[in-house]
């Protein structure tokens, strides 16, 4: 099988298997219990990173209901899926690839997944999470100041749920600083905190607030 990538020599062994490198990649995706980076997958399959990225994108399109028509695809040993999406999808989130059930089936899949991982956060927890996400790394005291209330118990809950973590201490005050985790990115479906919606449109003319405010009270 040749998936058009010129230099995939290292993966020769992979190509000899039925379905070739794409199926091998799919097999590895089946045992992941956390998102895997293109580098990790490439190393495991002995392919180069661009080749793996190409295969991942091809699988993603197939699962999303892409119909294979291009003539050069005919050579692929697996014909693509038909025109309808599969029940699952392959997503690249927080720098890693992973298989998810498709949102259309949330109601049904949710019956089988007992973990309650989708339990909604309280308003207080969401607001605290938002402040930490946009001001990280940040101390509890500063989050408290912005929200106007004590946030100790909410911060503890967010940490327990894996959405935030300890990121060291402030050199001056010695206070523990918090940041969001890669699990948070995964739950948000984004690659990095830079992809969070901009805060500035919600803060008209107050760009200097954080600094002003820091000087005031922290």
């Amino acid at each position, binding site marked *: 099988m040749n998936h058009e990538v010129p230099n995939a020599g290292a993966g020769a062994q992979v190509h000899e298997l039925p379905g070739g490198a794409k199926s091998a990649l799919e097999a590895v995706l089946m045992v992941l219990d956390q998102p895997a980076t293109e580098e990790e997958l490439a190393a495991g399959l002995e392919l180069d990173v661009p080749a793996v990225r190409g295969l991942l994108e091809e699988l993603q399109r197939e699962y999303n209901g892409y119909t294979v028509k291009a003539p050069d695809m005919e050579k692929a040993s697996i014909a693509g899926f038909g025109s309808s999406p599969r029940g*699952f999808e392959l997503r690249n989130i927080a720098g890693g690839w992973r298989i998810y059930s498709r949102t259309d089936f949330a109601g049904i899949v949710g019956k089988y997944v007992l973990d309650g991982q989708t339990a909604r*956060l309280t308003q207080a927890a969401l*607001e605290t999470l938002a402040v930490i996400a946009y001001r990280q790394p940040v101390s509890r005291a500063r989050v408290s100041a*912005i929200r106007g209330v*004590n946030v100790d118990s909410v911060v503890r809950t967010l940490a327990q749920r894996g959405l935030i973590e300890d990121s060291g201490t402030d050199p001056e005050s010695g206070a523990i600083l918090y940041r969001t985790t890669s699990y948070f990115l995964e739950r948000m479906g984004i690659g990095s905190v830079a992809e*969070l919606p901009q805060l500035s449109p*919600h803060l008209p003319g107050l760009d200097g607030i954080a600094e002003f405010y820091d000087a005031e009270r922290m």
Partner: protein
Amino acid sequence: MAETKPGFEVRLANFTGPFDLLLALIAKHQLDITEVAIATVTDEFIKYIRNLQQQGGEWALDEASEFLVIAATLLDLKAARLLPAGEVENEEDVALLEARDLLFARLLQYKAFKQVASLLGDTLHEEGQRFPRQVALEGHFAAMLPELVWKHSPEQFAALAAGALNPKTAPPPEVGLAHLHGHGSNVSVKEEAERLGLRLRQQSPLTFRELIADADSSLVVVARFLALLELFRDKAVSFDQPVALAELAVHWTAGHGDWSAENLSEEYEEQL
């Protein structure tokens, strides 16, 4: 997820803090966050926290204090609006303007975070409709895993457990009044209540201004204010204010021997 910690998240039902309440009141009147809005909603804000105070004695001190700090600022601002407009004359006026700007800034900042929090909530909910594949390793792969290196004796393991079970991340509840006063202060509501009780037994009524005349920090003022609320709940004092914003006169109503600070509710025993 339910917050099991007792506090205003539960008590206030819809509001998670003073800014939250303030924004809700402003929204109710469909006003921008401006000085006008502040003046309009001040009464409602004060009424709200008064109700809370009356409802129950379990309102934690730090939570109450957050509301009281905002309430005090609001009252100052409202008072300033009612006075004839004039030039900024003294340090108090300047401080008031700063307090107003700070309050607006904090309120706007909070409003922005509240808006993005709601965006975050929507995204988390939508993304929660997807479930990741995270299945246990298939048996034949699990069997291939290298044998664990285990070097811990039961005693070492116990030491590890002791460390892990030690609640190092659980801070004691703190009273967030550091901004009112430097560290190392030793002010307690109970002591201040005792002090007020002594003075009022000697002379009654006294105005609030007189009662705080010798306070050497705003922390002491806050403590005495809270102490008065406590005394009022214990029916040891009554308040008399002929018209809005007039001097507040405090009358001692508990006689001469019937009351002692020991009666104070326990939650105010902690030191500010």
